[in-house]
């Protein structure tokens, strides 16, 4: 069984400041890791994913995440946030193989303060 923990339910940050959203996972097998974002009144959109290879993954909108196997973490970072980044962010895992179901975390609401 797999699980995802997002310890921070809400993260307020001032505009143009850096941000890190934390994600830890638990799995007995290797995993694929994802970050999704949900803007108000929209569906979830894939920000980035880690399948294998380089542990630093770059995604859309200037976000990046680093896979740390020893710490079972996949934290999401952005060096300078914008008002438009205000949204809810979900970390997720799935077993390798492609068509497996995805397990999501509880989400982190990022509030960017002008």
């Amino acid at each position, binding site marked *: 069984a797999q699980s*995802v923990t997002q310890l921070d*339910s809400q993260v307020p940050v001032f505009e143009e400041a850096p941000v890190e959203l934390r994600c830890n996972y638990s799995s007995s097998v290797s995993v*694929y890791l*994802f970050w*999704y974002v949900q803007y108000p*009144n*929209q*569906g*979830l*959109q*894939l920000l980035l*994913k880690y*399948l294998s290879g380089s542990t630093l993954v770059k995604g859309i909108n200037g976000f990046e995440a680093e896979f740390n196997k020893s710490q079972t973490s996949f934290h999401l970072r952005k060096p300078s946030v914008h008002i438009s980044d205000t949204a809810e962010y*979900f970390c997720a895992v*799935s077993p*390798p*193989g*492609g*068509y*497996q*179901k*995805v*397990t*999501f*975390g*509880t*989400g982190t609401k990022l509030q960017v303060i002008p």
Partner: protein
Amino acid sequence: EAGVTQFPSHSVIEKGQTVTLRCDPISGHDNLYWYRRVMGKEIKFLLHFVKESKQDESGMPNNRFLAERTGGTYSTLKVQPAELEDSGVYFCASSQVGTGSPLGDGYTFGSGTRLTVV
């Protein structure tokens, strides 16, 4: 290209009533998934269709939930009779390739149906 369409966007029903949610995936996407998010909690997997066949329905809560996918196109999720704990946001997603494929972007999600049972 049209995205994944879900309707209704909101539904308020009384306990004991029946509600049917619909999902239209992206044309050509064989894989269709239903997920649910109960208020403030994680998004949980309900089931996965490949074309018209149920590939994995391990997440369906109980037999009050019935999912169908007619002809491998759109899908419906019926809740009958609805209970208070069924309230939440129901998401549908579709994909042509697997979530782990470097060729694709994984799932494309719809905007969800917010179901409130009172």
